[in-house]
């Protein structure tokens, strides 16, 4: 039983990381209807910025704040420069453009920082909390706490601020939002900025566990996709719940299903994506889209 709980906690820790990247994916999807295949790579790039700043001697938390600010600006810039020209284009075009962005950002990071792996400082103290026969490492607790805080901040932003109200209006109906005086273009850019910031958080969280290298987020991205699909691509709540479920499912499947083991774990997100899309395409918390042909 203790072993099972231990796996469960580990799964939640992994799930929190998937949840944070899924949250970034969902933010962009809500506003622009784009599934951003480059989200993981943008997070990786942000993490490199954080690494560069700490390597230059900045204290960790100051480096983090700077990184988040840079990521926010970078996200807005990408929306303005790269995504704006293809706004409203067919899905095929959007997917190809974000895949292009994926390849470009990945290679650019390799060009600037080489493909050698780098050690990333862990912001949380080593050691673990022991309770009832299971041990929860401080870094797992820290990751869960950070994701919780990010989720809370986003909730406050969307529910209780004027900017958030405007963003929800744009997500619901861009034309009507424009008619009541909301700057739709800038709101979309703001959405991208927010998503990049959330993505940067997930990159910084994942880097101490995985080692920093340009392909770091490739594996995380597919889990985040599964999480967003499971939770529903239009529900931030769902993304977090989906992330936790995916993390737990993957860890338990790896530990208890002998055939899967640790190497075939990556099949879990594939099964989840396929299963959700076939049984409940809108995800657990998403709204089904009714379409007029």
């Amino acid at each position, binding site marked *: 039983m203790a072993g099972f709980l231990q796996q469960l906690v580990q799964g939640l820790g992994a799930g929190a990381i998937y949840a944070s990247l899924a949250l970034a994916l969902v933010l962009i999807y809500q506003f622009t209807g784009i599934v951003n295949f480059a989200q993981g790579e943008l997070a990786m790039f942000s993490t490199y910025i954080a690494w560069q700043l700490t390597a230059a001697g900045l204290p960790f938390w100051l480096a983090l704040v700077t990184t988040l600010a840079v990521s926010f600006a970078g996200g807005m810039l990408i929306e303005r420069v790269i995504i704006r020209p293809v706004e409203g284009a067919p*899905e*095929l075009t959007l*997917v190809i*453009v974000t895949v292009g962005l994926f*390849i470009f950002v990945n290679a650019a990071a390799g*060009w600037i920082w080489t*493909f050698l792996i780098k050690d990333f400082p862990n912001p949380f103290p080593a050691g673990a909390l022991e309770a009832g026969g299971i041990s929860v490492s401080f870094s797992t607790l820290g990751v869960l706490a950070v994701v919780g805080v990010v989720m809370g901040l986003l909730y406050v932003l969307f529910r209780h601020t004027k900017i958030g109200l405007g963003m929800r209006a744009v997500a619901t109906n861009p034309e009507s939002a424009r008619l009541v005086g909301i700057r739709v273009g800038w709101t979309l850019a703001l959405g991208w900025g927010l998503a990049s910031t959330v993505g940067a958080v997930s990159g910084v969280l994942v880097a101490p566990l995985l080692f920093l290298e340009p392909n770091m987020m490739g594996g995380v991205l597919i889990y985040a996709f599964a999480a967003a699909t499971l939770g529903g691509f239009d529900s931030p709540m769902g993304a977090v719940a989906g992330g936790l479920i995916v993390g737990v499912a993957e860890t338990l499947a790896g530990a208890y299903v002998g055939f899967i083991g640790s190497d075939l774990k990556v099949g879990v997100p594939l099964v989840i*994506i396929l299963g959700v899309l076939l049984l409940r395409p809108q995800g657990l918390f998403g709204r089904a889209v009714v379409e007029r042909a």
Partner: protein
Amino acid sequence: MSNPTETNAAQARTAAPPPPPAPPPAEWWRSARWRWGAAALLAAAACYAPFQLVPFHVFQLTMVLIYAVALLGLNLLVGHAGQISLGHGAFFAVGAYTAAILLEHWALPYPLTLPVAAGAAFLLGLAFGVPAMRLRGLYLALVTLAIAIFLVPLLKRFEDLTGGSMGLTLAKPAPPAWSGLAEDQWLYFLTLAVAVAAFLLCAGLLRSRVGRALHAIRDNEGAAEVMGVRLSVHKTLAFAWSAMFAGTAGCVYTWVIGFVSPDSFTVNLSITLLAGLVVGGLGSLSGPVLGGLFVMFVPGLAQDINDAAPGVIFGLLIIAVMYVAPTGLAGLAGRLIRKIPRKE
């Protein structure tokens, strides 16, 4: 005495309204005859090249043809049916491994591996096409990406069959004595034959009602359905055909390289294929060849600058192509030809 049919024809001619003025004679580069001439010239060059080039360059040309066949399949799906696949490397790998396993474990004569590999990829494509038809663009991209990622550990797992991470090393098809060709030349001509067959098949497919149905689905799903196009059948079949071409390319790849390993078929292969197709030209017949040239030669040239340069160039080019020339290099070439002013 005049021939009655002739008088009838003459009467008919006088009764008919005056014929429209003859269209201005087309310039030579627009005529169909010129196009056939160009095709013949290209064919002659393709047959002549291996006798003039050093073996390494012959090998490179062979690889261009292999990529072109795979891109032909991807083009059928993405360019003509408007579906997205980020996992075509997986079908390529299935073809390659099917051929390799048949050669290694069953010692099948190599020509027989081609239909089996193509069939296996076709069936797999069909199997994934069924859920794919329920999936819209974005989700299809997700699922195919997940398949491409999942394939590598799967190949490593079944070590008895696939040789695990070490892969399988195979003997390359030997040129028959009557041909008098060197190994690289024989492989080149084998690949050329497969590529030409694949092109003819694909061109025929697109000119048939299947092609028209796919175009209709791409351009407007709702309208296509109203016109009586069975969406589910055609989308699933498009996926299966497309997988079959990729599998065929994979099989020829095994013949030519004589070695398969999981790390040759990572998700990078799928993304490179998509990049090559976008740059070469979505929805055109020459796009896959241009894309094959691009995939084969650009990374090598760019690698001289920096290890990461191919990625930077690929990424920027894809985005740029989507902005300024959605039909890729093939479309640009066509546009240039049309730009040449017609003689009055």
